């Protein structure tokens, strides 16, 4: 072997750069096998991914009544008094399946990069459900790191919001079920900032220098900046356009305006007062407001627009409790349960009928555009989803972003 791999067969390379469909990947594998025969020095083939190549582990759900769920911080209804998750406790009481819940996920990259080697080596990661954002869900589904789900065993899931039912990264929802959706926008402490923040320019005001935190994923932070720069993030944009947004973040970090770039733990900086404002996720600020009983915590969609994303529950390829996991997913699609969760987390509820249930819990919240946004609201505020990137773009932009945020 030489010190650097020789460029692969151009044909193979082009195939690899396409958004890889199941068939595409298998095709590439076949061609690759031929190419390896021709050029002895070409690097060996990566293991072919995709469901066709995957052998599912034996499901032991019937004998082992457990399900282990990895999720993000402040993402499930929690009772400070009993230190328990009421809806999860109700699930345990109802089904007898011992569900354990951990707030493992700080951001998508750090979580998946940590477990990916184990999943590829088919080693158990002690989790039966993990919850990842759309783009990362796309990646783990493509890489064959999750198990297919049987929609037929989850009757409640039929109540999923129509736009979520058929997504580009998982047509027909065969591998993932939406947990919650949300917006990224500006969060701030109104009393301490002393005025309303309405746009990103307000966030870059001089008196906030060194008191701003931003999210560590470019699909949040750079996306909002792109929108401010007039780019439509849901449709094909150019490399130059995204790099312009990266440059803006780069400048703000260099001159010390942005204090830290963080995953879910940005909440601590807001709580401690190190940061007064930042680019944040919608639900978190409502939880912060409830926890601290301080109505000064505000969340706004910037005037130039906000982003819409979803997090998706999936069953890792090594889990032996797929049936239990599906029971849990099904349970959370019961509109009454979904309403209870939404009343706490304040994220967009993916379940039809939950709004009616919410009216019984809190009629005010049933009207909240942050939980039940109307199509008009989304249109008026220019809220968009970040478009799917091809694997090549994904790798390129991730690497560029990693440099910007000091990784």
């Amino acid at each position, binding site marked *: 072997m030489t010190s*650097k791999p020789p*460029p692969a067969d151009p044909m193979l390379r082009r195939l690899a750069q396409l958004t890889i469909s199941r068939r595409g990947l298998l095709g590439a594998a076949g061609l690759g096998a031929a190419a390896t025969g021709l050029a002895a020095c070409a690097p060996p083939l990566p293991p072919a991914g995709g469901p066709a190549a995957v052998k599912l582990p034996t499901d032991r759900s019937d004998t082992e009544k457990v399900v282990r769920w990895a999720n993000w911080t402040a993402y499930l209804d929690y009772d400070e008094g009993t230190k328990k998750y009421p809806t999860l406790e109700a699930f345990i009481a109802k089904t007898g399946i011992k569900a354990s819940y951990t707030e493992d996920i700080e951001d998508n990259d750090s979580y998946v*990069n*940590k477990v990916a080697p184990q999943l590829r080596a088919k080693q158990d990661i002690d989790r039966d459900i993990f919850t990842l954002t759309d783009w990362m869900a796309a990646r783990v589904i493509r890489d064959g790191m999750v198990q297919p789900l049987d929609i037929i065993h989850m009757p409640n899931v039929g109540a999923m919001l129509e736009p979520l039912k058929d997504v580009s990264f998982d047509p027909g929802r065969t591998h993932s079920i939406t947990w919650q959706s949300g917006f990224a926008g500006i969060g701030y402490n109104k009393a301490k900032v002393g005025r309303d923040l309405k746009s990103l320019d307000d966030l870059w005001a001089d008196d906030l220098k060194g008191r701003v935190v931003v999210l560590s994923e470019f699909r949040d932070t750079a996306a909002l900046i792109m929108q401010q720069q007039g780019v439509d993030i849901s449709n094909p944009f150019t490399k130059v356009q995204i790099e312009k947004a990266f440059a803006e973040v780069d400048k703000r970090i260099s001159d010390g305006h942005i*204090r830290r770039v963080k995953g879910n733990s940005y909440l*601590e900086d807001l709580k*401690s007062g190190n940061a007064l404002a930042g680019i944040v996720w919608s639900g978190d600020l409502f939880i912060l407001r409830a926890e601290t009983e301080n109505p000064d915590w505000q969340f706004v969609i910037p005037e130039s627009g906000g982003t819409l994303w979803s997090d998706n529950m999936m069953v890792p390829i090594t889990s032996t409790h797929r049936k239990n996991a599906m029971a849990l997913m099904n349970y959370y699609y019961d509109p009454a349960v979904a309403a209870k969760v939404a009343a706490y987390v304040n994220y967009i509820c993916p379940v039809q009928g939950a709004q009616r249930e919410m009216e019984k819990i809190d009629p005010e919240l049933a009207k909240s555009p942050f939980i039940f946004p109307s199509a008009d609201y989304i249109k008026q505020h220019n809220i968009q989803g970040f478009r799917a990137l091809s694997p090549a773009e994904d790798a390129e932009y991730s690497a560029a972003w990693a440099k910007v945020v*000091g990784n």
Partner: protein
Amino acid sequence: MTALAHTAGAGTHAGGPAPGQGRRRGGIAAYLLLLPGALWLVLFFLLPLIQLFAVSLQSGFPGYPGYYYRDVNAGNYLTAITQFAGHFGRSLLYAGLATFFAFVLAYPLAYAMAFKAGRWRNVMMIAVIAPFFTSFILRTIAWRQILADEGPVARVLNTLHLLPGGRITETWVAVVAGLTYNFLPFMVLPIYASLERADPKVIEAGGDLYANGFTTFRTVTLPVSLPGVIAGTLLTFIPAAGDYVNAELLGSDRSTKMVGNVIESQFFRVLGGFPVAAALSFTLMALILAMVFVYVRRFGTEELL
């Protein structure tokens, strides 16, 4: 060793050893005694190290980020050294500063504990060790809160206009302070052990020979405690150079990152960064090993080598 060999031999050979064989079996017993430790080291140190080295030479599969294949790609080391030279420099600098400050703080403390504390000695000992009862990460997070902009320290300093940047966290000062704090006990304890073991008569003799206090300290006490100082500096410098918790929790995103942080981000945040992360780990290890070797050769005593 002979006694141990004998008991071991007695267990296996009831007939009693012939005089000539005792020595050979003594060897076997010694090896048997070494076995658990050696096995442990092979399993949990040597094998992972070999694996890490293998990873550090792997190449990423073109077009499939996150997949690797076996290779002899020394380019990873080149990337590690050229792209992250600043991080290496900062790691050594911060670890050096922390070691220095820890020494300056620890020596008088250890001295007081060994010679002046009297009945307070145990209380002081507990005060030094007590922080270990709580997790190192939790204590660092606590520091983050204490040093926060609206915390007591920053507020007082800001009122007195003594804080140039207006903040403490997210600066190198906070990182070095955190490192110093976290590794201080590792400096205090070996120095204390050395001083406590020192024969007071030797130190008294300095006075008897008309040396003043400072000269006695310089020519008698300090040399006597040198093994403790060397051990303390090593125990502080080595983990501090590889530390990433302090820089992560107390530092900023760019200007205070250390090698540990880059290794973490190459492993967990950069898709396809495993080989470079492994190369960084190996380079750091080699660098520290070389520095420690020179240091111990230059200042060390027989007790350490």
